[in-house]
């Protein structure tokens, strides 16, 4: 065997704390290694060129690169060795950057550890076997989960690109958070006016199949061939008959149903169409409030409906869709007021959240766009905005910035002045974060043109005093405590991951961070991909994002799907399980533990019973390999012998 080893300096990233020349010198002493060198940037083009030349010149048949994490560049180098004529699996990477040079302080120890890491990689590569992938057909349908602006953009772009799209939205209408906003910053244009046409496009696009009020039940399969079970939740209204006339809503006797769309600013009816521009514009019954369900009698809507669409017996329905790729655009959630007992947490009606205020400002909202405070429906003259209500607060488990609150507070303060010219707004802030195009000018305008008072400091307590709410905070620039007697307090509550985000991630087999936001493949270079091939991210499900960023990512995800589907066949990863039929005793324990049902029983001509791997279904986890008592089923590229070679390299030499 002729192994070549390439040790990367990564500029000073590795060479700064690892003696790379020594690593190369020690590597040369290893049996099997015929060539070892160190290089400034191995991943650069000249660096890769050097590998190719060495393969040819030194007649190398195995290559090890000691550099950064294989999660970063394994694929890069696999392609390099492949171009030089080697099988791409005759390549191993030793991670001497993330796992060594960046975390160890002692150069001697780091260098020694790097040498050992190379030794392990050499041991592994000498046990590597050539592997060859096979190809399979792709189902060129895409599913978009979430009908907010990001999901809609992705759906429209995919559909315009000629793909069949299945759009699944869990609430009764698409539109998401953007549909609830009044105006958008920094242009102050009407949110629904620009979103509405897009919603209509989605509804009318012949390539888009919309499942509203539906949730993902189960996802099986792999890139190119997913089977998704969708739960169509019971609306108790036959949507094929419902015309969206709204008669039922008008007549419904239950007037105290919780209005999810308006975040409970005002009550709604038990049967309702969430908002006038809803797509689909169909009614649905909320059985937790409907008298027919709670008391067993009423039937008013059934009587009044001109098309006879009401069906109290309706049940959830499960449908299955076969698709090839998934765009996840499940959006975000908002911190509960409950988290702020010192702010009066739901006890005081005039302490509301930013999104609730958005609905109050909105012309189609419960107050028809008149700013009226919830407690007594009077016009507030003093409005206090509290930014970072939960955000950047370790003690509440949200250490991150919610990204767009600074901007919408400025917008809301401006709108308040527009609506109530004799009002005065105050904004408590820690830092004004407005790095977008035209953003900082916007927050300046709020202060310069609209007289909004910005107070640098946090609010410690809000309590009622007569009809006013006393907001006590600090002005750290003045170095004092300050108090404002406000009529209305708006909290810019922290952006959190969507409810059920973790559960959805588990169904999708994608990872999520501590806060429930989905993790992209690479924070810079692969921002819309996930580690599960065929699953892409769009919008705030990946982290707090404003509208332009969400739309941008929606389009980006769509372009990823389109490029994935530009081929008719996909290549399978050959690093999957393989059965040695001579060793297999047919106990089929692997069948029991395979998470993907990728192993089945096969009877050989001799009558011998053995396990057989279904190549396209196997995902390469290796649970079978560690289940098999006789080592007959081996996960390729991570076989027992390959891992033992690494263990032995550490323990026995």
């Amino acid at each position, binding site marked *: 065997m002729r192994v070549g080893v390439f040790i990367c300096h990564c500029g000073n990233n590795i060479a700064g704390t690892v003696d790379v020349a020594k690593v190369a010198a020690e590597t*040369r*002493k*290893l*049996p*099997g*290694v*015929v060539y*070892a060198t160190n290089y400034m940037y191995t991943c650069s083009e000249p660096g890769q060129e050097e590998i190719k030349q060495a393969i040819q010149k030194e007649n190398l048949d195995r290559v090890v690169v000691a550099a950064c994490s294989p999660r970063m560049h394994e694929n890069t180098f696999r392609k390099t060795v492949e171009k030089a004529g080697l099988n791409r699996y005759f390549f191993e990477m030793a991670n001497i950057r993330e796992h060594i040079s960046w975390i160890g302080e002692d150069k001697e120890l780091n260098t020694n550890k790097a040498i050992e890491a190379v*030794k392990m990689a050499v*041991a592994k590569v000498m046990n590597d076997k050539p592997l060859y992938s096979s190809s399979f057909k792709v189902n060129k349908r895409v599913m978009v989960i979430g009908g907010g602006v990001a999901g809609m953009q992705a759906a429209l772009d995919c559909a315009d690109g000629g793909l069949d799209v299945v759009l699944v939205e869990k609430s009764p209408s698409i539109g998401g958070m953007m549909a609830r906003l009044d105006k958008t910053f920094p242009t102050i244009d009407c949110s629904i006016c620009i979103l509405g046409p897009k919603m209509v496009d989605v509804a009318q696009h012949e390539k888009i199949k919309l499942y509203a009020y539906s949730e993902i039940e189960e996802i099986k399969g792999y890139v190119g061939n997913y089977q998704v079970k969708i739960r169509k939740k019971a609306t108790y209204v036959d949507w094929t008959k419902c015309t969206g006339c709204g008669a039922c809503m008008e007549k419904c006797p239950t007037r105290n149903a919780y209005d999810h769309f308006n975040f409970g600013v005002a009550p709604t009816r038990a049967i309702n169409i969430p908002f006038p521009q809803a797509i689909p514009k169909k009614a649905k019954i909320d059985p937790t409030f409907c008298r027919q369900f709670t008391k067993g009698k009423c039937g008013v809507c059934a009587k009044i409906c001109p098309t006879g669409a009401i069906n109290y017996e309706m049940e959830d329905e499960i449908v299955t869709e076969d698709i090839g790729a998934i765009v996840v655009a499940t959006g975000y959630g908002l911190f509960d007021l409950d988290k702020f007992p010192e702010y009066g947490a739901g006890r005081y009606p005039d302490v509301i959240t930013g999104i609730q205020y958005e609905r109050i400002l909105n012309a189609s909202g419960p107050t028809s766009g008149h700013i009226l405070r919830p407690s007594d429906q009077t016009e507030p003259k003093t409005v206090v905005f509290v930014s970072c209500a939960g955000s950047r607060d370790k003690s509440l488990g949200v250490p991150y910035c919610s990204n767009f609150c600074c901007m919408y507070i400025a917008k809301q303060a401006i709108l308040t002045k527009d609506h109530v010219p004799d009002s005065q707004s105050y904004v408590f802030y820690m830092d004004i974060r407005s790095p977008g195009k035209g953003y900082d000018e916007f927050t300046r305008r709020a202060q310069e043109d609209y007289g909004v008072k910005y107070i640098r400091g946090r609010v410690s307590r809000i309590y009622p005093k007569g009809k006013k709410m006393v907001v006590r905070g600090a002005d750290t620039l003045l170095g004092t405590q300050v108090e404002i007697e406000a009529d209305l307090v708006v909290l810019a509550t922290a952006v959190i991951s969507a409810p059920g985000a973790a559960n959805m991630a588990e169904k999708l087999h994608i990872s999520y961070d501590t806060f429930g936001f989905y993790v992209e493949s690479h924070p810079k270079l692969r921002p819309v991909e996930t580690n599960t091939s065929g699953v892409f991210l769009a919008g705030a499900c990946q982290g707090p994002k404003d509208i332009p960023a969400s739309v941008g990512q929606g389009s980006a995800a769509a372009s990823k799907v389109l490029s994935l589907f530009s081929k008719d066949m996909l290549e399978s990863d050959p690093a999957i399980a393989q059965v040695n039929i*001579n060793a297999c005793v047919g106990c089929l324990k692997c069948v029991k533990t395979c998470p993907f049902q990728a192993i089945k029983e096969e009877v050989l001509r001799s009558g011998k019973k053995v396990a057989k791997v279904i190549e396209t279904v196997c995902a390469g986890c290796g649970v079978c390999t560690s289940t098999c008592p006789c080592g007959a089923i081996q996960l390729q590229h991570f076989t027992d012998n390959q891992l033992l070679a690494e263990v*032995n*390299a550490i323990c*026995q*030499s």
Partner: protein
Amino acid sequence: MPDTGYLPKEKVKDFIRELAKDAIVHVPCLEGETVVFRPFSEDRELCLERPANTPPKSIIYPQSETLFSFEHKKDPEDHQKMSVELKVDIDAPGTVIFGARPCDARGFVIYDRVFIDTDTPDPYYKKRRENTLVVTLSCAAPFPGCFCVGVGGSPAGKEGTDAMLTEIAGGYIVEPVTEKGKAILNKPMVEDGSTRLKDAQQAQQKAHEAVKNPFAGGMPNISPELFDADPFWEQALSKCVSCGACTYLCPTCYCFNITDEQVYGKGERIRSWDACMFFHFTLEASTHNPRPTKFQRFKNRVGHKFVYYPEKYEGAIACCGCGRCIRYCPVSVDISEIVNDLGGGGKKEQQPAGSAKND
């Protein structure tokens, strides 16, 4: 110097101590309920009452031994050049096997023909054999499964022995067999035993008569037709579980395997016992195995001992009748019964176990 010695019972330990001065003395020791050969040391519990569970064969012919170690060395000047450095080290210190049974000693004679009396003697075995003194202890009575007389042995047979002890009242008569063995009469604990040699001979005779010969004709006689009849083997061995207890406990089995064990350019070539009862025995690299079933493998075991070996070595049977394979077989496969059945002669009489009156 007398030809016969006498070793009083109470001096046995002193005697071993004396021997241990210039050799490693392997003695049968009690460990729990098991008797095993262990290098003598003061804290060992000697057991001469019954044969050891394992024969002493591994002392001369270890279960696994390093034939040589090797290391890939790189030329410091030109790392593309590599050489392999070999190291051979035959570990053969002066050794005494004390308290082996005559059958155990006879096993070494069977090995000697293979490993020493040939054009290419095995240096490892030979060196150890030459450096070892075998002091046997004759058996006073048969033990479960014993049948040495059926294969030409005896509870007091002296083949392969350097000196033999025979228990009589108060101690042991010491009979040297070889020149090497004679030397032990010089040890201060050994008294003159000439006058009591008779007692020992009587005991030996008595023991010989007590051993049952399982073979109808006195000696095993195998019918070639039956030997090659698969159904016979299939029937006889259906209960065998294919473990290696019989061969690893056998003082005459010597099949071995050679493997290289290496980690990172350093390693050893190892010779280790093989057992024809295992599937991996004679398994070819192509995954073909000429003996794929357990009865074929067992046939090899019987064949080797009673047919092939005798054919090659002038009729010598490669079985010493120690009975361990019967005694320790998980399913009580009885080789003597099988050999007897192969003779085609009258069926061996049923042992009375079945008639145990339990109801």
